[in-house]
C-alpha cells in the first residue's frame, strides 16, 4: 500500500507548530503563538491567513485595554485535518505490510 501524501498545508514548519498549539487550547492570542513558535509577526500573519483560507482556524480581531488583539481558534475542520495528518504520519513511522 502506498503511503498517503501528507497534507501540504500542515506539512510545513510554522503552520504545523501553530496547529499543534491550537489543538491543545480553546483559543490563543497572536502574541502567544508568536512567542511559542519563535516566529516573526509578518511571517506568522501570512501563515495564519493560509490556515484561515482553508477554514482550519478562525481569526477574531478585537480590542483589549485599547490595544488591538488577534485571537485564533481551531475549527472542527482544522482538528480533523490535524488528526488525519498525525494518523498519516504514523504510517510513515510504521509502514503497513502490503
Amino acid at each position, binding site marked *: 500500500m502506498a503511503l498517503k501524501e501528507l497534507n501540504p498545508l500542515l506539512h*510545513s514548519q510554522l503552520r504545523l507548530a501553530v496547529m499543534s498549539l491550537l489543538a491543545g487550547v*480553546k483559543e490563543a492570542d497572536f502574541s502567544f503563538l508568536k512567542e511559542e513558535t519563535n516566529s516573526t509577526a509578518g511571517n506568522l500573519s501570512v501563515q495564519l491567513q493560509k490556515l484561515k483560507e482553508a477554514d482550519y482556524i478562525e481569526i477574531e480581531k478585537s480590542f483589549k485595554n485599547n490595544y488591538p488583539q488577534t485571537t485564533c481558534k481551531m475549527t472542527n475542520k482544522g482538528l480533523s485535518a490535524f488528526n488525519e495528518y498525525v494518523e498519516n504520519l504514523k504510517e510513515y513511522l510504521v509502514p503497513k505490510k502490503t
Partner: protein
Amino acid sequence: MEEREINISESLKIIQSMVNKTQRQFSDDSFYYIMWGWLVFTASVAHFILLQLNVPQAPIVWLLMPVGGIVSMIYGAKQSKKEKIKTYVGNYMSYLWGAMGMAMLVVLGMAFKIGFDVTYPILILIYGIGTFVSGGLLSFRPLIIGGVICFALSVVSFFAMFQYQLLFIAAAMLASYIIPGHLLKAKFNN
C-alpha cells in the same frame, strides 16, 4: 521558526514540543482557594464565638462574603487581561464555579424552606463538589482529598447542633480550600 519544508522526524518534534507547551499552561488559581478559604473560615469561627457570647447580631459576619465576591471579580478581571490563551480546563472551571455559586445562593435563599439545621451541611456538600471536581480537572490530589473530607464532614454535621455546624464549615475550609490552596500555590512557585 520559518516557513519551510520539513521531514517526518521534524514534524514529530514540532508537534511534540508544541503540545508540551500548551500542557503546561495552567493558570495559578490558588488565590481563589486561599482567599475564600480564609474568608469563610474566619466568618464561621467568628459567628461561632459571637454565638457563644450571646451577641444577637452574630450573623453579620457573613457580610464578608460580598466583599470576597468583589475581590474575586477584580482579581479575575486583572488576570484575564494577562491571559494569552484560553484553555478547555479553564472554561470548564468557570462553568463549575458558576454553577456552585448559583447552587449556594439557592440553598441560602431557600434556607427558611428547607430548614436552617440542614442548610450548612448542604453548603459543605456543595463546597466539596467544587474542590473534588476542580481537583480532577487539574489532576491535583490535595483538592480531591479535600472534597472527600467535605463529604464526610457534611454527613456528620447533619447530626450536629446549628452552632457546632459552624465549626464543621471551618474544618471543611481548612481541609478543602486553605491547605490545598497553599499546596497549589507552592506547586506553581516551584
